[in-house]
Protein backbone atom coordinates (compact mmCIF):
# COMPACT_ATOMS: atom_id res chain seq x y z
CA UNK A 1 0.00 0.00 0.00
CA UNK A 2 1.25 3.44 -0.89
CA UNK A 3 1.85 5.90 1.95
CA UNK A 4 1.15 8.74 -0.46
CA UNK A 5 -2.26 10.15 0.12
CA UNK A 6 -4.65 12.53 -1.57
CA UNK A 7 -5.95 15.73 0.07
CA UNK A 8 -9.30 13.99 0.36
CA UNK A 9 -7.74 11.10 2.25
CA UNK A 10 -6.20 13.55 4.69
CA UNK A 11 -9.59 15.23 5.11
CA UNK A 12 -11.20 11.88 5.86
CA UNK A 13 -8.55 11.10 8.46
CA UNK A 14 -8.93 14.53 10.06
CA UNK A 15 -12.70 14.21 10.10
CA UNK A 16 -12.46 10.76 11.65
CA UNK A 17 -10.46 12.22 14.54
CA UNK A 18 -13.38 14.51 15.35
CA UNK A 19 -15.44 11.44 16.28
CA UNK A 20 -15.14 10.41 19.93
CA UNK A 21 -15.78 6.88 21.08
CA UNK A 22 -19.46 6.37 21.89
CA UNK A 23 -20.58 9.30 19.76
CA UNK A 24 -23.87 9.16 17.94
CA UNK A 25 -22.84 10.58 14.58
CA UNK A 26 -25.15 12.02 11.98
CA UNK A 27 -23.49 10.80 8.83
CA UNK A 28 -23.99 12.47 5.49
CA UNK A 29 -22.73 11.11 2.19
CA UNK A 30 -19.31 10.97 0.52
CA UNK A 31 -16.33 11.80 2.74
CA UNK A 32 -18.21 11.69 6.09
CA UNK A 33 -19.26 8.10 5.52
CA UNK A 34 -15.59 7.24 5.03
CA UNK A 35 -14.62 9.26 8.10
CA UNK A 36 -17.12 7.33 10.20
CA UNK A 37 -15.84 4.07 8.79
CA UNK A 38 -12.28 4.99 9.70
CA UNK A 39 -13.18 6.16 13.21
CA UNK A 40 -15.29 3.13 13.96
CA UNK A 41 -12.49 0.84 12.75
CA UNK A 42 -9.82 2.61 14.78
CA UNK A 43 -10.39 4.72 17.87
CA UNK A 44 -14.18 4.83 18.18
CA UNK A 45 -15.44 1.24 18.18
CA UNK A 46 -18.58 2.14 20.14
CA UNK A 47 -19.71 4.98 17.89
CA UNK A 48 -23.06 4.70 16.18
CA UNK A 49 -24.07 6.21 12.84
CA UNK A 50 -27.42 7.74 11.96
CA UNK A 51 -28.39 8.14 8.32
CA UNK A 52 -31.13 10.63 7.67
CA UNK A 53 -33.18 8.48 5.35
CA UNK A 54 -33.88 6.19 8.31
CA UNK A 55 -30.96 3.99 9.39
CA UNK A 56 -28.85 3.33 12.46
CA UNK A 57 -25.66 1.30 12.05
CA UNK A 58 -22.71 0.21 14.13
CA UNK A 59 -20.25 -1.22 11.62
CA UNK A 60 -20.08 0.58 8.33
CA UNK A 61 -20.93 -1.39 5.25
CA UNK A 62 -17.77 -2.68 3.60
CA UNK A 63 -19.16 -2.67 0.11
CA UNK A 64 -18.86 0.46 -1.99
CA UNK A 65 -21.77 2.84 -1.41
CA UNK A 66 -22.95 5.23 -4.10
CA UNK A 67 -25.66 6.52 -1.75
CA UNK A 68 -26.57 5.94 1.86
CA UNK A 69 -29.59 3.99 0.64
CA UNK A 70 -27.58 1.40 -1.25
CA UNK A 71 -28.54 -2.14 -0.22
CA UNK A 72 -25.27 -2.94 1.61
CA UNK A 73 -25.95 -0.01 3.95
CA UNK A 74 -29.34 -1.46 4.87
CA UNK A 75 -28.39 -5.10 5.35
CA UNK A 76 -27.13 -5.42 8.89
CA UNK A 77 -28.56 -2.08 10.03
CA UNK A 78 -29.50 -1.89 13.69
CA UNK A 79 -32.70 0.00 12.92
CA UNK A 80 -34.43 0.75 9.62
CA UNK A 81 -37.13 3.31 10.06
CA UNK A 82 -38.56 6.63 8.97
CA UNK A 83 -36.60 9.82 8.41
CA UNK A 84 -38.68 11.64 11.03
CA UNK A 85 -37.67 9.16 13.73
CA UNK A 86 -33.99 9.74 13.02
CA UNK A 87 -34.45 13.49 12.78
CA UNK A 88 -36.36 13.35 16.05
CA UNK A 89 -33.30 12.00 17.84
CA UNK A 90 -31.35 14.86 16.31
CA UNK A 91 -33.97 17.39 17.44
CA UNK A 92 -33.80 15.97 20.96
CA UNK A 93 -30.14 16.93 21.03
CA UNK A 94 -28.92 13.34 20.98
CA UNK A 95 -26.62 13.57 17.95
CA UNK A 96 -23.11 14.29 19.23
CA UNK A 97 -21.67 15.18 15.87
CA UNK A 98 -22.72 15.87 12.32
CA UNK A 99 -20.82 16.35 9.09
CA UNK A 100 -21.72 18.75 6.33
CA UNK A 101 -20.39 19.78 2.97
CA UNK A 102 -21.27 22.77 0.88
CA UNK A 103 -20.53 24.94 -2.09
CA UNK A 104 -19.73 27.93 0.11
CA UNK A 105 -18.85 28.47 3.74
CA UNK A 106 -18.26 31.84 5.33
CA UNK A 107 -16.07 33.18 8.15
CA UNK A 108 -18.87 32.54 10.65
CA UNK A 109 -19.37 28.98 9.51
CA UNK A 110 -22.62 29.52 7.64
CA UNK A 111 -23.07 27.12 4.73
CA UNK A 112 -24.72 27.68 1.39
CA UNK A 113 -25.92 24.68 -0.58
CA UNK A 114 -28.89 26.41 -2.23
CA UNK A 115 -28.35 29.54 -4.32
CA UNK A 116 -25.36 31.51 -5.57
CA UNK A 117 -26.56 35.07 -6.01
CA UNK A 118 -30.02 36.37 -5.21
CA UNK A 119 -32.30 33.42 -4.57
CA UNK A 120 -35.07 35.15 -6.53
CA UNK A 121 -32.84 35.17 -9.63
CA UNK A 122 -29.94 32.88 -8.90
CA UNK A 123 -26.70 32.73 -10.84
CA UNK A 124 -26.37 29.10 -9.79
CA UNK A 125 -29.02 26.83 -8.36
CA UNK A 126 -27.47 24.26 -6.07
CA UNK A 127 -29.33 21.12 -4.95
CA UNK A 128 -30.48 22.52 -1.59
CA UNK A 129 -30.43 21.56 2.06
CA UNK A 130 -31.29 17.90 2.18
CA UNK A 131 -30.76 17.26 5.87
CA UNK A 132 -27.97 19.85 6.07
CA UNK A 133 -29.95 22.63 7.73
CA UNK A 134 -31.33 20.17 10.27
CA UNK A 135 -27.88 18.95 11.23
CA UNK A 136 -26.46 22.48 11.42
CA UNK A 137 -29.27 23.69 13.65
CA UNK A 138 -29.88 20.64 15.83
CA UNK A 139 -26.70 18.59 16.32
CA UNK A 140 -24.52 19.16 19.37
CA UNK A 141 -21.55 20.04 17.14
CA UNK A 142 -20.68 19.68 13.49
CA UNK A 143 -17.80 19.79 11.10
CA UNK A 144 -17.71 21.08 7.54
CA UNK A 145 -15.65 19.42 4.83
CA UNK A 146 -14.91 21.20 1.58
CA UNK A 147 -12.33 21.98 -1.04
CA UNK A 148 -10.23 25.01 -0.08
CA UNK A 149 -10.82 27.57 -2.82
CA UNK A 150 -11.19 31.32 -2.53
CA UNK A 151 -14.61 31.15 -4.19
CA UNK A 152 -15.77 28.59 -1.61
CA UNK A 153 -14.44 30.14 1.60
CA UNK A 154 -16.14 33.50 1.38
CA UNK A 155 -16.61 36.45 3.68
CA UNK A 156 -20.39 36.05 3.76
CA UNK A 157 -22.42 33.44 1.91
CA UNK A 158 -25.12 34.76 -0.40
CA UNK A 159 -27.72 32.42 1.14
CA UNK A 160 -27.56 30.68 4.52
CA UNK A 161 -28.85 27.16 4.02
CA UNK A 162 -27.25 25.73 7.15
CA UNK A 163 -26.55 28.33 9.82
CA UNK A 164 -23.26 28.41 11.65
CA UNK A 165 -22.77 31.46 13.87
CA UNK A 166 -24.91 33.79 11.75
CA UNK A 167 -23.50 37.30 11.82
CA UNK A 168 -20.77 36.17 14.19
CA UNK A 169 -22.02 38.20 17.14
CA UNK A 170 -21.77 36.65 20.57
CA UNK A 171 -24.84 34.50 21.35
CA UNK A 172 -26.35 34.68 17.87
CA UNK A 173 -27.47 31.06 17.85
CA UNK A 174 -29.02 31.32 21.31
CA UNK A 175 -30.86 34.51 20.41
CA UNK A 176 -32.22 32.94 17.23
CA UNK A 177 -33.32 29.87 19.19
CA UNK A 178 -31.05 27.31 17.53
CA UNK A 179 -30.75 24.37 19.93
CA UNK A 180 -27.45 22.85 18.78
CA UNK A 181 -23.95 24.05 19.53
CA UNK A 182 -22.88 25.01 16.03
CA UNK A 183 -19.86 24.29 13.88
CA UNK A 184 -16.63 23.18 15.53
CA UNK A 185 -14.30 23.06 12.56
CA UNK A 186 -13.89 23.41 8.82
CA UNK A 187 -11.71 20.71 7.33
CA UNK A 188 -10.48 21.62 3.86
CA UNK A 189 -8.05 20.33 1.27
CA UNK A 190 -5.41 22.72 2.68
CA UNK A 191 -6.06 23.22 6.38
CA UNK A 192 -8.22 22.89 9.45
CA UNK A 193 -10.08 25.99 10.65
CA UNK A 194 -11.64 26.04 14.10
CA UNK A 195 -14.15 28.23 15.88
CA UNK A 196 -13.56 29.57 19.37
CA UNK A 197 -15.71 28.12 22.17
CA UNK A 198 -19.04 29.95 22.05
CA UNK A 199 -18.69 30.53 18.33
CA UNK A 200 -17.78 33.48 16.18
CA UNK A 201 -15.17 33.58 13.43
CA UNK A 202 -13.15 30.64 12.09
CA UNK A 203 -9.41 30.73 12.74
CA UNK A 204 -6.66 28.77 11.06
CA UNK A 205 -5.78 25.93 13.41
CA UNK A 206 -3.43 23.77 11.36
CA UNK A 207 -2.05 23.62 7.84
CA UNK A 208 -1.80 20.34 5.97
CA UNK A 209 1.69 19.01 5.17
CA UNK A 210 3.11 20.57 2.02
CA UNK A 211 1.10 23.76 2.33
CA UNK A 212 1.76 27.13 3.97
CA UNK A 213 -0.14 29.66 6.04
CA UNK A 214 0.29 32.17 3.21
CA UNK A 215 -1.20 29.77 0.67
CA UNK A 216 -4.16 29.08 2.92
CA UNK A 217 -4.76 32.79 3.52
CA UNK A 218 -4.51 33.50 -0.19
CA UNK A 219 -7.16 30.88 -0.90
CA UNK A 220 -9.50 32.23 1.78
CA UNK A 221 -12.03 34.93 0.98
CA UNK A 222 -11.60 36.84 4.21
CA UNK A 223 -8.69 38.04 6.28
CA UNK A 224 -8.13 34.69 7.99
CA UNK A 225 -6.68 34.97 11.48
CA UNK A 226 -4.23 32.35 12.69
CA UNK A 227 -4.64 30.70 16.08
CA UNK A 228 -1.54 31.21 18.21
CA UNK A 229 0.46 28.00 18.12
CA UNK A 230 -1.15 26.76 14.89
CA UNK A 231 0.94 23.98 13.43
CA UNK A 232 0.83 21.23 10.87
CA UNK A 233 -2.09 18.84 10.49
CA UNK A 234 -0.91 15.31 11.24
CA UNK A 235 -0.78 13.20 8.09
CA UNK A 236 -3.05 10.16 7.87
CA UNK A 237 -1.56 7.18 9.65
CA UNK A 238 -0.94 3.96 7.84
CA UNK A 239 -3.88 2.43 9.70
CA UNK A 240 -6.16 5.26 8.68
CA UNK A 241 -5.12 4.95 5.05
CA UNK A 242 -5.71 1.21 5.15
CA UNK A 243 -9.22 1.73 6.40
CA UNK A 244 -9.97 4.48 3.90
CA UNK A 245 -8.85 2.31 1.01
CA UNK A 246 -10.76 -0.67 2.34
CA UNK A 247 -14.00 1.31 2.19
CA UNK A 248 -13.19 3.21 -1.01
CA UNK A 249 -10.93 0.82 -2.91
CA UNK A 250 -11.28 2.56 -6.23
CA UNK A 251 -10.87 6.06 -4.82
CA UNK A 252 -14.35 7.04 -5.99
CA UNK A 253 -14.68 9.60 -3.20
CA UNK A 254 -11.06 10.30 -2.36
CA UNK A 255 -9.46 10.86 -5.68
CA UNK A 256 -8.46 14.50 -6.19
CA UNK A 257 -11.32 16.58 -7.57
Amino acid at each position, binding site marked *: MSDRYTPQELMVAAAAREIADGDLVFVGMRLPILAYAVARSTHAPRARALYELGLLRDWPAEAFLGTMGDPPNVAGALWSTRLSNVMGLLAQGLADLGFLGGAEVDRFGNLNTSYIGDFRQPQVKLPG*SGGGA*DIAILSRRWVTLLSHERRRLVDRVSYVTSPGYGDGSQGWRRRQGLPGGGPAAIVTTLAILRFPPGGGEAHLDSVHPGHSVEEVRAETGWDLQVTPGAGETPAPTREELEQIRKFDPEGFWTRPA
Partner: protein
Amino acid sequence: METGKVMTMREAVASFVPDGSSVAMGCCLEPLVPFAAGHELIRQRRTALNLIGPISDSLFDQLIGAGCVARVTAAWVGNVSEGLGHNYRRAAESGQPNPLEIRDHSNFSIALALWAAAWGAPYLPTRTLLGSDILLSNPDLVAGDGLVRVGALKPDVTILHVQRADAAGRAHAWGPLGVAEEAALAAGRVILSCEELVDQEVILSDPNRVLVAETKVVAVVPEPGGGHPAPVQGYWRRDHAFMRDYATRSRTREGFLEWLQEWVLATPDRAAYLGRLDDTERLRIRQHRLSAPVDYGDE
Protein backbone atom coordinates in the same frame (compact mmCIF):
# COMPACT_ATOMS: atom_id res chain seq x y z
CA MET B 1 -60.49 -11.03 -4.37
CA GLU B 2 -60.60 -7.39 -5.43
CA THR B 3 -58.63 -6.76 -8.60
CA GLY B 4 -60.07 -3.43 -9.75
CA LYS B 5 -56.99 -1.58 -8.55
CA VAL B 6 -54.52 -3.58 -10.66
CA MET B 7 -53.64 -1.75 -13.86
CA THR B 8 -50.80 -0.65 -16.11
CA MET B 9 -48.77 2.45 -15.36
CA ARG B 10 -50.29 4.05 -18.42
CA GLU B 11 -53.77 3.53 -17.00
CA ALA B 12 -52.80 4.64 -13.50
CA VAL B 13 -51.27 7.90 -14.67
CA ALA B 14 -54.09 8.58 -17.12
CA SER B 15 -56.74 7.96 -14.48
CA PHE B 16 -55.28 9.52 -11.37
CA VAL B 17 -52.69 12.19 -12.19
CA PRO B 18 -54.23 15.08 -14.10
CA ASP B 19 -52.26 18.17 -15.15
CA GLY B 20 -51.60 20.48 -12.24
CA SER B 21 -51.54 17.73 -9.63
CA SER B 22 -49.30 17.87 -6.61
CA VAL B 23 -47.37 14.60 -6.69
CA ALA B 24 -45.13 13.19 -3.97
CA MET B 25 -42.37 10.90 -5.24
CA GLY B 26 -38.91 9.82 -4.14
CA CYS B 27 -40.23 9.51 -0.61
CA CYS B 28 -37.65 6.94 0.52
CA LEU B 29 -34.86 9.31 -0.61
CA GLU B 30 -32.36 7.22 -2.56
CA PRO B 31 -34.04 3.77 -2.71
CA LEU B 32 -37.38 2.84 -4.25
CA VAL B 33 -37.63 5.95 -6.43
CA PRO B 34 -40.62 5.44 -8.78
CA PHE B 35 -38.76 6.21 -12.01
CA ALA B 36 -41.18 4.17 -14.14
CA ALA B 37 -44.07 6.32 -12.93
CA GLY B 38 -42.11 9.50 -13.58
CA HIS B 39 -41.33 8.43 -17.12
CA GLU B 40 -44.99 7.71 -17.79
CA LEU B 41 -45.86 11.21 -16.54
CA ILE B 42 -43.42 12.53 -19.14
CA ARG B 43 -44.79 10.33 -21.92
CA GLN B 44 -48.32 11.52 -21.17
CA ARG B 45 -47.05 15.12 -21.34
CA ARG B 46 -48.26 16.14 -17.91
CA THR B 47 -47.85 19.84 -17.21
CA ALA B 48 -47.88 22.19 -14.24
CA LEU B 49 -47.15 19.48 -11.70
CA ASN B 50 -46.13 20.40 -8.17
CA LEU B 51 -43.50 17.83 -7.24
CA ILE B 52 -43.16 17.06 -3.55
CA GLY B 53 -40.35 15.00 -2.07
CA PRO B 54 -37.28 15.16 0.15
CA ILE B 55 -34.63 13.86 -2.27
CA SER B 56 -35.69 12.19 -5.47
CA ASP B 57 -32.24 11.39 -6.82
CA SER B 58 -32.40 12.42 -10.47
CA LEU B 59 -36.13 11.83 -11.02
CA PHE B 60 -37.27 15.40 -10.33
CA ASP B 61 -34.49 16.72 -12.55
CA GLN B 62 -35.84 14.62 -15.43
CA LEU B 63 -39.42 15.77 -14.96
CA ILE B 64 -38.31 19.40 -14.78
CA GLY B 65 -36.29 19.06 -17.97
CA ALA B 66 -39.23 17.42 -19.71
CA GLY B 67 -41.38 20.46 -19.00
CA CYS B 68 -43.85 18.75 -16.66
CA VAL B 69 -43.26 20.87 -13.59
CA ALA B 70 -44.44 24.27 -12.37
CA ARG B 71 -43.33 23.97 -8.76
CA VAL B 72 -40.89 21.88 -6.75
CA THR B 73 -41.41 21.51 -3.02
CA ALA B 74 -38.31 19.63 -1.91
CA ALA B 75 -35.29 19.49 0.34
CA TRP B 76 -32.79 18.60 -2.36
CA VAL B 77 -32.90 18.18 -6.14
CA GLY B 78 -29.90 16.86 -8.03
CA ASN B 79 -28.19 13.56 -8.65
CA VAL B 80 -27.10 11.92 -5.42
CA SER B 81 -23.87 10.31 -6.54
CA GLU B 82 -23.03 12.90 -9.21
CA GLY B 83 -24.02 16.23 -7.69
CA LEU B 84 -25.88 18.96 -9.49
CA GLY B 85 -29.17 18.59 -11.32
CA HIS B 86 -28.57 20.28 -14.64
CA ASN B 87 -32.21 20.62 -15.66
CA TYR B 88 -33.00 21.99 -12.22
CA ARG B 89 -30.26 24.57 -12.73
CA ARG B 90 -31.46 25.56 -16.18
CA ALA B 91 -35.04 25.95 -14.99
CA ALA B 92 -34.11 27.95 -11.90
CA GLU B 93 -31.42 30.07 -13.53
CA SER B 94 -32.93 30.76 -16.95
CA GLY B 95 -36.49 29.41 -16.96
CA GLN B 96 -35.65 26.64 -19.39
CA PRO B 97 -37.85 24.89 -20.50
CA ASN B 98 -40.29 26.53 -18.03
CA PRO B 99 -40.03 28.95 -15.17
CA LEU B 100 -39.94 26.96 -11.95
CA GLU B 101 -41.25 27.94 -8.55
CA ILE B 102 -39.12 26.48 -5.78
CA ARG B 103 -40.36 25.95 -2.23
CA ASP B 104 -37.30 24.98 -0.24
CA HIS B 105 -37.45 22.59 2.68
CA SER B 106 -35.06 20.56 4.75
CA ASN B 107 -35.55 16.83 5.02
CA PHE B 108 -36.98 17.18 8.51
CA SER B 109 -39.31 20.03 7.66
CA ILE B 110 -40.79 18.26 4.65
CA ALA B 111 -41.44 15.20 6.81
CA LEU B 112 -43.21 17.41 9.35
CA ALA B 113 -45.24 19.07 6.58
CA LEU B 114 -46.48 15.66 5.47
CA TRP B 115 -47.20 14.53 9.04
CA ALA B 116 -49.22 17.69 9.55
CA ALA B 117 -51.43 16.74 6.63
CA ALA B 118 -51.57 13.11 7.73
CA TRP B 119 -52.94 14.28 11.08
CA GLY B 120 -55.28 16.94 9.76
CA ALA B 121 -53.23 19.71 11.39
CA PRO B 122 -52.63 23.02 9.60
CA TYR B 123 -48.95 23.05 10.59
CA LEU B 124 -46.39 21.47 12.89
CA PRO B 125 -43.96 23.52 14.96
CA THR B 126 -40.23 22.86 15.08
CA ARG B 127 -36.95 24.55 15.88
CA THR B 128 -35.29 23.32 12.73
CA LEU B 129 -34.76 26.00 10.06
CA LEU B 130 -34.37 28.77 12.64
CA GLY B 131 -31.56 30.96 11.38
CA SER B 132 -31.77 29.52 7.87
CA ASP B 133 -32.62 31.58 4.78
CA ILE B 134 -34.92 28.73 3.79
CA LEU B 135 -37.42 30.70 5.86
CA LEU B 136 -37.13 33.48 3.28
CA SER B 137 -37.64 31.36 0.20
CA ASN B 138 -40.65 29.27 1.22
CA PRO B 139 -43.95 30.91 2.19
CA ASP B 140 -45.13 27.64 3.75
CA LEU B 141 -42.66 28.22 6.61
CA VAL B 142 -43.53 30.88 9.16
CA ALA B 143 -41.21 31.81 12.02
CA GLY B 144 -42.32 33.31 15.30
CA ASP B 145 -41.98 32.80 19.06
CA GLY B 146 -38.73 30.90 18.59
CA LEU B 147 -40.41 28.28 16.41
CA VAL B 148 -41.01 27.58 12.76
CA ARG B 149 -44.53 26.62 11.77
CA VAL B 150 -44.24 24.16 8.90
CA GLY B 151 -47.43 24.32 6.84
CA ALA B 152 -49.17 21.06 5.99
CA LEU B 153 -48.42 19.53 2.60
CA LYS B 154 -51.21 17.36 1.25
CA PRO B 155 -50.21 15.76 -2.06
CA ASP B 156 -53.03 15.03 -4.47
CA VAL B 157 -51.20 11.83 -5.29
CA THR B 158 -48.32 9.98 -3.69
CA ILE B 159 -46.56 7.51 -5.96
CA LEU B 160 -44.47 4.81 -4.29
CA HIS B 161 -42.43 1.99 -5.70
CA VAL B 162 -42.47 -0.93 -3.25
CA GLN B 163 -41.17 -4.46 -3.12
CA ARG B 164 -44.55 -6.19 -3.06
CA ALA B 165 -48.25 -5.49 -2.89
CA ASP B 166 -51.53 -7.30 -3.29
CA ALA B 167 -54.42 -6.52 -5.60
CA ALA B 168 -56.33 -4.68 -2.88
CA GLY B 169 -53.53 -2.13 -2.53
CA ARG B 170 -51.73 -3.36 0.56
CA ALA B 171 -48.02 -2.68 0.26
CA HIS B 172 -45.01 -4.23 1.95
CA ALA B 173 -41.93 -2.02 1.72
CA TRP B 174 -38.69 -2.41 3.63
CA GLY B 175 -35.36 -0.77 4.04
CA PRO B 176 -35.18 2.88 5.10
CA LEU B 177 -38.63 4.40 4.69
CA GLY B 178 -37.78 8.10 4.49
CA VAL B 179 -41.10 9.95 4.42
CA ALA B 180 -43.03 7.26 2.53
CA GLU B 181 -45.49 6.50 5.31
CA GLU B 182 -46.50 10.08 6.00
CA ALA B 183 -46.59 10.92 2.29
CA ALA B 184 -49.00 8.04 1.71
CA LEU B 185 -51.15 8.86 4.73
CA ALA B 186 -51.29 12.53 3.80
CA ALA B 187 -52.16 12.01 0.15
CA GLY B 188 -55.57 12.20 -1.40
CA ARG B 189 -54.72 9.01 -3.28
CA VAL B 190 -51.79 6.61 -3.55
CA ILE B 191 -50.45 4.84 -6.62
CA LEU B 192 -48.24 1.83 -5.93
CA SER B 193 -45.84 0.25 -8.34
CA CYS B 194 -44.38 -3.00 -7.15
CA GLU B 195 -41.68 -5.49 -7.97
CA GLU B 196 -44.12 -8.32 -7.27
CA LEU B 197 -47.89 -8.55 -7.15
CA VAL B 198 -48.48 -11.23 -4.50
CA ASP B 199 -51.45 -13.08 -3.05
CA GLN B 200 -53.16 -11.33 -0.20
CA GLU B 201 -52.16 -14.23 2.04
CA VAL B 202 -48.54 -13.09 1.79
CA ILE B 203 -49.38 -9.51 2.75
CA LEU B 204 -51.92 -10.33 5.44
CA SER B 205 -49.49 -12.73 7.07
CA ASP B 206 -47.74 -9.58 8.31
CA PRO B 207 -50.16 -6.65 8.75
CA ASN B 208 -47.57 -4.65 10.69
CA ARG B 209 -45.52 -4.36 7.51
CA VAL B 210 -48.41 -2.86 5.52
CA LEU B 211 -47.32 0.68 4.76
CA VAL B 212 -50.63 2.49 4.57
CA ALA B 213 -54.36 1.84 4.81
CA GLU B 214 -55.55 0.27 1.56
CA THR B 215 -58.38 2.81 1.54
CA LYS B 216 -55.85 5.40 0.29
CA VAL B 217 -54.62 3.25 -2.59
CA VAL B 218 -56.30 3.67 -5.98
CA ALA B 219 -53.90 1.79 -8.27
CA VAL B 220 -51.50 -1.12 -8.04
CA VAL B 221 -49.10 -1.42 -10.97
CA PRO B 222 -47.01 -4.57 -11.25
CA GLU B 223 -43.78 -3.03 -12.54
CA PRO B 224 -40.64 -5.11 -11.96
CA GLY B 225 -37.59 -2.90 -12.26
CA GLY B 226 -39.80 0.17 -11.87
CA GLY B 227 -37.24 1.78 -9.59
CA HIS B 228 -34.19 1.53 -11.90
CA PRO B 229 -31.63 3.10 -11.59
CA ALA B 230 -32.51 3.45 -7.87
CA PRO B 231 -31.84 0.48 -5.60
CA VAL B 232 -34.56 -1.86 -4.30
CA GLN B 233 -33.56 -3.87 -1.24
CA GLY B 234 -33.64 -7.57 -2.02
CA TYR B 235 -34.16 -6.98 -5.75
CA TRP B 236 -31.87 -4.43 -7.41
CA ARG B 237 -28.57 -2.67 -6.86
CA ARG B 238 -28.29 0.98 -7.69
CA ASP B 239 -27.08 1.55 -11.27
CA HIS B 240 -24.35 4.11 -10.59
CA ALA B 241 -23.12 4.04 -14.20
CA PHE B 242 -26.57 4.89 -15.51
CA MET B 243 -26.77 7.82 -13.08
CA ARG B 244 -23.36 9.01 -14.24
CA ASP B 245 -24.33 8.74 -17.89
CA TYR B 246 -27.47 10.76 -17.20
CA ALA B 247 -25.45 13.42 -15.37
CA THR B 248 -23.00 13.69 -18.25
CA ARG B 249 -25.54 13.80 -21.02
CA SER B 250 -27.88 16.22 -19.25
CA ARG B 251 -25.17 18.87 -18.87
CA THR B 252 -26.56 20.46 -22.01
CA ARG B 253 -30.17 20.91 -22.93
CA GLU B 254 -29.54 19.13 -26.22
CA GLY B 255 -27.86 16.23 -24.51
CA PHE B 256 -30.76 15.91 -22.12
CA LEU B 257 -33.33 15.94 -24.92
CA GLU B 258 -31.47 13.15 -26.67
CA TRP B 259 -31.34 11.18 -23.44
CA LEU B 260 -35.05 11.78 -22.92
CA GLN B 261 -35.92 10.66 -26.41
CA GLU B 262 -33.87 7.52 -26.05
CA TRP B 263 -34.92 6.42 -22.57
CA VAL B 264 -38.42 7.83 -22.17
CA LEU B 265 -40.20 9.19 -25.23
CA ALA B 266 -39.18 6.50 -27.68
CA THR B 267 -39.61 3.79 -25.07
CA PRO B 268 -43.25 2.81 -24.72
CA ASP B 269 -43.17 1.26 -21.27
CA ARG B 270 -40.98 -0.13 -18.52
CA ALA B 271 -40.53 -3.52 -20.14
CA ALA B 272 -39.11 -1.84 -23.25
CA TYR B 273 -36.90 0.36 -21.05
CA LEU B 274 -35.45 -2.66 -19.28
CA GLY B 275 -34.92 -4.29 -22.65
CA ARG B 276 -32.76 -1.34 -23.69
CA LEU B 277 -30.41 -1.80 -20.76
CA ASP B 278 -27.58 -3.91 -22.05
CA ASP B 279 -27.16 -5.91 -18.88
CA THR B 280 -29.77 -5.88 -16.13
CA GLU B 281 -28.38 -9.09 -14.67
CA ARG B 282 -25.38 -7.31 -13.17
CA LEU B 283 -27.84 -5.22 -11.15
CA ARG B 284 -29.97 -8.03 -9.84
CA ILE B 285 -29.52 -8.98 -6.19
CA ARG B 286 -29.10 -12.70 -5.95
CA GLN B 287 -28.09 -13.51 -2.41
CA HIS B 288 -31.04 -13.69 -0.08
CA ARG B 289 -31.09 -12.36 3.46
CA LEU B 290 -34.50 -13.44 4.70
CA SER B 291 -36.11 -11.97 7.77
CA ALA B 292 -36.94 -14.26 10.68
CA PRO B 293 -40.70 -14.80 10.91
CA VAL B 294 -42.88 -13.46 13.69
CA ASP B 295 -45.90 -15.29 15.02
CA TYR B 296 -49.35 -13.70 14.77
CA GLY B 297 -50.92 -16.79 16.35
CA ASP B 298 -54.21 -16.06 18.06
CA GLU B 299 -55.44 -19.35 19.49
